[in-house]
């Protein structure tokens, strides 16, 4: 988020009881934190409680922030720990270690088969999407994207939410979810390919492709 002071300055202001600084973080980060929490727990209410608990832990424990990670990483660590515990209590277990996500991410029937002169190449190119305004998708499409996120398997959703929606760095996501770099890449790829496929289906349905 633009306009936030440096981490050490922020942390010091929080320690000194600067309410404006706290409100700035609260308003800037809570939305993203809710989205992340929701990927771990069963209900909206639980997610909201996890975010609430996290902020209370931040208020209590800001002295323990030593600046070895970014402040946001520190807060997200508290958040994911609490969300995981909560998810576990709600019997919503997200197995982070098993790799059950294998196989191609694009329907194999879209590629030419072994007997063809060009095996493994597209039968038909992916249809072109309407040109987005300002390089991004319109409101309606973003809504579809939001819905598609909810359909992802949990582990894929967690990775793509942290990386692409929240913009958290690679190594932080490995740490927060307790996964290897290779595992993260597989999950991220599958999630992105699934979401791209959903958008393609949406455009085909709307007859907006060429």
């Amino acid at each position, binding site marked *: 988020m633009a306009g936030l002071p440096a981490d050490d300055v922020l942390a010091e202001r929080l320690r000194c009881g600067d309410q404006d600084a706290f409100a700035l973080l609260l308003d800037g980060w*809570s939305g993203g934190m809710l989205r992340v929490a929701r990927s771990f727990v069963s209900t909206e209410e639980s997610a909201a409680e996890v975010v609430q608990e996290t902020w209370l832990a931040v208020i209590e424990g800001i002295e323990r922030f030593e600046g070895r990670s970014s402040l946001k990483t520190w807060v997200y660590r508290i958040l994911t720990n609490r969300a995981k515990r909560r998810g576990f209590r709600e019997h919503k277990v997200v197995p982070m270690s098993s790799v059950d996500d294998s196989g191609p991410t694009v329907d194999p029937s879209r*590629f030419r088969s072994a007997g063809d002169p*060009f095996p493994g190449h597209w039968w038909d190119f992916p249809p072109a999407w309407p040109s987005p305004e300002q390089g991004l998708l319109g409101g309606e499409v973003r809504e579809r994207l939001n819905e598609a996120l909810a359909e992802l398997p949990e582990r894929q959703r967690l990775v793509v939410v942290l990386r692409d929606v929240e913009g958290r760095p690679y190594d932080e996501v490995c740490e927060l979810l307790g996964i290897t770099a290779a595992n993260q890449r597989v999950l991220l790829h599958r999630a*992105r390919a699934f979401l791209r496929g959903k958008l393609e289906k949406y455009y085909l349905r709307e007859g907006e492709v060429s």
Partner: protein
Amino acid sequence: MSPLDCREFVEKVTSYLEGELSTAAEQDFVDHLALCDGCERYLEQMCLTTASLADLPADSISTDARSALLNAFRARRS
């Protein structure tokens, strides 16, 4: 013809975007990209999907929760 086919290309997109391909594999990827309009489009759409995720509107916590937290901050910190 590059040694990479389209079916393989689409599975390497994220590794490419993350900068994790070896020099040789990246060269194969880029070579294929230069020759194949279908894969170029696929890559663009993956990038657009990814960029649009960063642009999704976030929810916010309830106003009650917000004031409760501000109160808690005041009580504990000032």
